Each structure stands twice: as structure tokens, then as C-alpha cells.
């Protein structure tokens, strides 16, 4: 049933996102054309454009930035709105009478939300790539990348891929934990009989503050209790960075589990549709 839920979730969200992506692509191409025609030297240092070209460039750039900002905000809003509106308002009457497990409902929202976040990033990369076409040569880029890998290896004795992978994992897990924090907050808000949206906001703020306090305490307490100099003596900078990255991943992973089970527990045991 998860597959079917995913299918319908993509269908329901795609109608918002696809036009936005289309708009971004069209605007990217227009901006690219304006640059190519109006300011061919844009990516070099000697910018010498006429006043008319400058105005048109200004307008297209502003539009471009607005669309990108809107896309990022929309992704965030849709993630929240699909969980809240589809499950906890009138639409919840339909969703919760489907013969599916609660965890399938949560995962369908989470996976599709993550998917659109990733697609959103990809679209931004593609868009920036199109804009910068012609300002660099593919050969040079490939050479630079290869150089970075060799440099990294000679300096630290390990492949750059390891660090990149750990960074990617860290970002992915922290993205999941931020989404699950929102889900848990919305679920906690449902425990109240009135002012549920307000209660959800409250829950979100309280959880964030509590986490901040815990992190601060750890940051202060650990150096006091353990002699970090001994721990880190002989460990080079890159090892320390790895500790930091993987430590963050691990903490976020724990938070993911807590937020997830909190959400599932409330949805299963204390469902209270208005």
C-alpha cells in the first residue's frame, strides 16, 4: 500500500511543483539569452554594458531570484501543508479510513517531501549550470576536480569521496530530522482540543529551544569533563572534522527516531480529528 500512497502523494504534490520547475527553466533560458545578447562579457571582469541592457538584466535577475526563493519556500510549505492538511483536517477523514498502516502514511509524506527537496536542489544546480554555460570549459572543470582529489589524497592520505559521502549523509539525515520535527510538532498540536495550529507552533519552538540547551550543555560540559587535548592530540584537522560531521549525523539519527515514534504514537493512540 505504501507504493499506492506514494503514487497519489506525488500526483497531489506534482501539480504544484511541476509548473514551478517549468517556470524556473523558462526563466533560466530567458536570463541566459539576455546575458548572451545584452552582456556577452558578463562572466569576465571587464563588464561594459549599456544602460538599457543593464535595466533588462536587472529585471530578469530580480525575477530569477524571486522564482528561486519562491521555489525553496514552496517546497518547505508543501511539506508542512501535505502532512497537516491531508492528515489532520477534513481530508484526514479519508486518509485515516484507508486500509493502510499509520507508518505508511508518515513514510509516504516523508519520502515524497524528501524527493521534492532533492529535486529542488537538482533544479537549482541545473539552472545555475545553464546560466554559466560558455563561461568555463568542461575540460578545465574535470581537470580541477581531478586535481582536488589528488591534492586531498596526498595531504590527508584518504579519498575525498569519503568526506563527501559523510557530508552528504549528514545533510540527508539532518533534512529528515527537520521534517520529522515538524511532523512531531504538528502531531503534538493535535493533542489539544483547541488552537491546534498554535499549539503545533508552540511545540516546535519548545522542542527547538530544549535541543539548543542540551547541545550547549554538551558543548560546555564535554571539554570540562574530558581532556580534549589528549583525545585530539595526534589527530589532524581532517579527523576532527570527520568526528564533527559523523557526530552530527549520529545525533540527528537519534532525533529522527525519537520524532518519528512520537508522531506515530500520537497518530495511533491519540488521533483526534475535529
Amino acid at each position: 500500500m505504501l507504493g499506492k500512497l506514494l503514487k497519489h502523494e506525488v500526483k497531489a504534490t506534482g501539480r504544484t511543483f511541476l509548473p514551478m520547475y517549468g517556470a524556473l527553466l523558462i526563466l533560466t533560458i530567458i536570463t541566459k539569452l539576455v546575458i548572451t545578447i545584452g552582456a556577452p562579457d558578463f562572466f569576465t571582469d571587464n563588464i561594459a554594458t549599456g544602460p538599457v541592457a543593464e535595466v533588462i538584466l536587472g529585471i530578469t535577475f530580480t525575477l530569477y531570484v524571486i522564482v528561486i526563493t519562491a521555489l525553496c519556500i514552496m517546497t518547505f510549505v508543501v511539506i508542512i501543508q501535505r502532512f497537516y492538511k491531508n492528515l489532520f483536517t477534513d481530508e484526514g477523514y479519508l486518509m485515516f479510513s484507508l486500509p493502510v498502516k499509520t507508518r505508511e502514511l508518515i513514510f509516504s509524506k516523508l519520502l515524497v517531501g524528501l524527493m521534492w527537496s532533492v529535486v529542488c536542489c537538482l533544479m537549482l544546480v541545473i539552472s545555475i549550470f545553464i546560466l554559466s554555460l560558455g563561461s568555463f570549459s568542461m575540460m578545465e572543470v574535470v581537470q580541477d576536480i581531478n586535481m582536488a582529489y589528488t591534492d586531498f589524497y596526498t595531504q590527508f592520505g584518504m579519498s575525498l569521496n569519503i568526506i563527501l559521502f559523510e557530508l552528504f549523509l549528514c545533510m540527508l539525515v539532518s533534512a529528515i530530522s527537520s521534517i520529522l520535527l515538524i511532523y512531531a510538532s504538528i502531531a503534538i498540536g493535535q493533542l489539544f482540543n483547541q488552537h491546534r495550529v498554535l499549539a503545533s507552533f508552540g511545540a516546535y519552538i519548545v522542542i527547538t529551544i530544549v535541543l539548543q540547551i542540551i547541545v550547549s550543555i554538551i558543548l560546555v560540559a564535554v571539554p570540562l569533563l574530558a581532556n580534549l587535548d589528549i583525545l585530539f592530540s595526534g589527530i589532524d584537522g581532517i579527523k576532527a572534522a570527520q568526528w564533527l560531521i559523523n557526530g552530527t549525523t549520529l545525533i540527528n539519527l537519534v532525533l529522527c527516531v525519537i520524532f518519528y515514534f512520537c508522531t506515530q504514537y500520537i497518530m495511533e493512540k491519540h488521533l483526534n480529528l475535529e
Partner: protein
Amino acid sequence: MIILSAKNLTKSFGKKIALSNINLEIPRGRIIGLLGPNGSGKSTLIKLATGLLVPTGGEITIDGAIPGVETKAKTSYLAERTYLNGWMRAEDIIAFFEDFYEDFNRIKAENMLKDLNINPSDRLKTMSKGTKEKVQLILIMSRSAELYLLDEPIGGVDPAARDYILNTIITNYKENASVIISTHLIADIEQVLDDIVFISKGEITMTSTVDEIREKYNKSVDGLFREVFKC
């Protein structure tokens, strides 16, 4: 054969008690009217049966199981509000039901839409409230479920459609299935009911067959209701 059973079922919202210590057994093959004034706990009882609410105390079972995936697959629930997404077309929501409910019969749904002159490619948000209710009822009755829970099914539809819908209800359900209809428009549905459950202030005040009421009180259900719940 019991399809729905409630034992010492209690549900409270904060301090407000919506249902208190309900004991009820609904057999298969009956059409039951769940009748009571506004705020008597009809919707709460139905929502507990669908699993949309979790009991505060006691238990409710459908075909012996606590509400969950298994019971939801054989329960067809009509909510008292319209829960369909406005952007969907009637045909989209048919595809949705077809995907999730194995007992959904697309042909039945399409025929009923045709009978009630509803265009399957119309978006739900362009439909009137009554039409939306009809679409919802068509979806619910196009399943061959074992238990139908209809919460205020005829409130917003015109009398002509009302007759069609009631007719649909009695002709569409399987022999071993039961239909629970909650309403306060008793006169309209009295003709199709086998049994009645009177509910008041969160408690069941009477369960009886319709024939018994006619014999014992020499009254229609509507008449009895008006007398029992006289203000």
C-alpha cells in the same frame, strides 16, 4: 453473527464525556438507524468504529477485531463532512478508491454518477455542496463492504436524490453486510430501517426492531423519537 460490538465503550474529550459505558451488538444483515438529537454521541460512536478516534475506555470491535488496517478494508465510512480534495475530478477520486479498496466497483460508481447526472470529469470544487455529498455517497456505496457507516448521509441532498440514495443503500449491500445510518431525519429513512438504536447524552436509551416499535407502541419510529426526545 455480530459485525460490530462495543463493550463498556467510553470516549471523553478533556472533561466532556461524549460516550459513557456503551454496550452494543450489531448483527450482520441489518439496516440500523442510529438515532438521537444533535450532540448525543452518534458521530463519536461511528468515528470510534472507523478508528478515527481511539476509545478512552472499553473497546469496540468490527468482526472481532479492533479498528485497524483489517477492519478499515471491510468498513465503508461516509463522513458527515465533505473530505474530498477540491482539485480532484470525480474520475480522479474514483481511481483513488479503486487503488485502495479491493472491494470497490468502478462500473457501479460510474453508473450511479450517470444516473444522478454528474459529469465524471467535473472538478469537485466546481460542484455544489449537495452534489459533492452525492459523489461521496456514490463512492461509499460502490464498495461491497461488510459494514457501512453512514453519518448523516442525506442531510444536504434534495428529496428526489434522497429517494435514489436510499434505494441505492438498500439494493447495494450484500446479504451478510450491515448498514448503520446516523441521522435525525427519521421520517425520511424510516421505511428502510430494520432496527433502531436511540442514543441520548452519550448513552444508549433503547435498542429495538422497527416492527417491535410499531407493535408495542403503535407508533412510527419518528413518532416515538419525538416523544422520547421531547424538549
